């Protein structure tokens, strides 16, 4: 789950990390008022869960409150990578002496939170990482001890020669590490960590991604979710307990298990088709989940056929069959359905489907071939 920049900044501030002031505006008028309070010369920043905001025109400098209003008018409602901007952050345009990068991510390799810092921060940090990796300093933090003072200070000296700035950065790193565990972040980064001409060290921009598995036990964090900032079908899928990612093809895929779902999409492609989505109904197989899955898939007019691929393990075939039958009552299904179903309670499932007028296959390749043919307008 992504947090907006303004939410991430607020979390950092609460943990004692110096963050310049800032206000959120949802209308041009609010933006003007905020800009006035902040002294006129401000940055107007789109709050949207997409990278490359700046290049898309979602970040603009204003020299006056009127200009801030105009920028907000332009940015609010614009679309960046398919997502509509509903909010802007108004922050004072700070004079910056230097830009560093500080980030923490949970790393598969070391199985630890890894702290990465670079004196070459800013929007080109990825290029820095690719071209001059020696400018990125990394430390795999031992979670049994946490980020120790001397470790943070050592990295502080990697950013700043001045001991006061190094200590300030070290303090920010230790607090950022605490933020990670406090909010359940799989990523927390400050980019840029900026120094002002007076020498103060501040977090100018922040990004926090929450581990989805943490959300349930952290109601305060769950409350930060902004569903208006997500694709509606993905919101619907999450609320139904499904994992759904929309793609550009026309073969709707409904599978149990992420690996099998990907393999099914791959097989659609292998036989010349194009998957319309990734959809994993997961292990627990209540009929209602299947109905929700069908509702989401059929709401996409591009979908020409729906392919079920179910290998029953925890998932019971009869539950899925019941869900399909139930959906035919609740929804008006206008596209053909190809069903492949094997494993747990396969016999019961076949009986239910046959009674309702469906036929089902047990071979994955056969089912995919049929679905692709149907999507191309051919008879199966």
């Amino acid at each position, binding site marked *: 789950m992504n947090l907006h920049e303004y939410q991430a900044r607020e979390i950092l501030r609460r943990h004692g990390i110096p963050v310049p002031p800032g206000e959120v505006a949802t209308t041009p008028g609010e933006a003007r008022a905020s800009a006035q309070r902040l002294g006129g010369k401000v940055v107007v920043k789109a709050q949207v869960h997409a990278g490359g905001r700046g290049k898309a025109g979602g970040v603009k400098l204003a020299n006056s409150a009127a200009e801030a209003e105009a920028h907000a008018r332009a940015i609010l409602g614009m679309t960046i990578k398919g997502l509509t901007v509903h909010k802007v952050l108004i922050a004072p345009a700070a004079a910056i002496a230097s830009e560093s990068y500080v980030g923490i991510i949970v790393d598969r390799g070391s199985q630890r939170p890894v702290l990465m810092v670079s004196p070459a921060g800013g929007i080109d940090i990825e290029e820095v990482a690719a071209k001059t990796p020696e400018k990125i300093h990394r430390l795999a933090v031992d979670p049994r001890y946490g980020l120790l003072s001397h470790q943070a200070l050592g990295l502080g000296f990697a950013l700043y020669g001045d001991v006061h700035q190094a200590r300030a950065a070290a303090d920010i790193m230790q607090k950022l590490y605490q933020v990670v565990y406090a909010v359940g972040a799989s*990523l927390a980064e400050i980019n840029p960590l900026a120094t002002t001409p007076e020498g103060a060290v501040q977090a100018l921009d922040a990004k926090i991604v929450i581990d989805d598995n943490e959300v349930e036990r952290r109601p305060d964090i769950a409350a930060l979710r902004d569903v208006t900032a997500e694709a509606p079908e993905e919101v619907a899928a999450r609320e139904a307990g499904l994992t759904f990612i929309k793609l550009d093809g026309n073969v709707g895929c409904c599978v149990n298990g992420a690996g099998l779902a990907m393999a099914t999409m791959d097989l659609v492609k292998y036989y010349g088709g194009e998957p319309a989505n990734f959809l994993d109904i997961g292990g627990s197989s209540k009929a209602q989940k299947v109905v929700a899955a069908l509702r989401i898939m059929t709401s996409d007019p591009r979908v020409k056929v729906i392919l079920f691929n179910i290998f029953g*393990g925890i998932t019971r075939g009869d539950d899925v069959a019941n869900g399909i039958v139930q959906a035919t009552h609740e929804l008006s299904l206008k596209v053909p359905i190809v069903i492949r179903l094997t494993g747990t309670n396969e016999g019961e499932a076949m009986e239910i489907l046959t009674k309702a007028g469906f036929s089902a296959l047990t071979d994955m390749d056969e089912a995919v071939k049929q679905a692709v043919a149907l999507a191309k307008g051919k008879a199966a």
Partner: protein
Amino acid sequence: MSIFIDQSTRLVVQGITGRDGSFHAKQMMAYGTKVVAGVTPGKGGQRFEDSVPVFNTVAEAVHETRANTAVIYVPAAVAASAIFEAADAGLELIVCITEGIPVLDMTRVLPFVHERGARLIGPNCPGLISPGKSKVGIIPGNICEPGKIGVVSRSGTLTYEIIHQLSSHGMGQSTCVGIGGDPLIGTNFVHCLTAFEADPETAAIVLIGEIGGTDEQQAADFVRRNVSKPVVGFIAGQTAPPGRRMGHAGAIISGASGTAAEKMQALEQAGIGVMKRPADVVPLLKSARI
């Protein structure tokens, strides 16, 4: 032989009175697994299915029944604690089926398990099965046949698909291990490859990977250097869209982006036969003269 579990496996089921735990405990008992104890705090003293003693704590269960393996079916909110408990009680093998454990919990669990000298499989995995000997987890026993193919997979149902292909064509399995799809897991491909290579009963190995991370690349490298047995592999997610970006840090840390193409190339370069689709597993193994 087989790897990790066999007839000597004495299993304690954590969460045996829960919905998933009780269902799968019965399945495992029916398959022939020696389920010697269950654990549910507050239900100590009861018997599960009139036979298996239930304890309040894993330590008691181990003390009373000499269990050597634990399988965990408790809810995600308490699953990390269940792994700590199993490791603390001295179990050698801990299989965690539970899905949804926060990754930060795992950063603390894994060093603890390691310090205690235990092996953790999972979390968020289907467990493992040594066909005809023992099943620990949720892999359907009826799709497996005893034999000489070792299977190791990051996936759940995709593993069943592959096992199904193997069994349908007379290729039984020594052990099938689902290592789990989470970012932080206790046992990885290399651990399983090491065990399969050392297992005289395993003649060939099937490796089932996915996009994301670099585990398959490391596995390929390991195969090239250390595995003498034939290996065939599959990577799910060839058509998957690039994963949601995790800020800049994701790109910085991984360097490579963990695509299926990269992984398939790594497998090929290590001399591993790469399947294009699950049904290719049998012909590929046959061409490796198994």
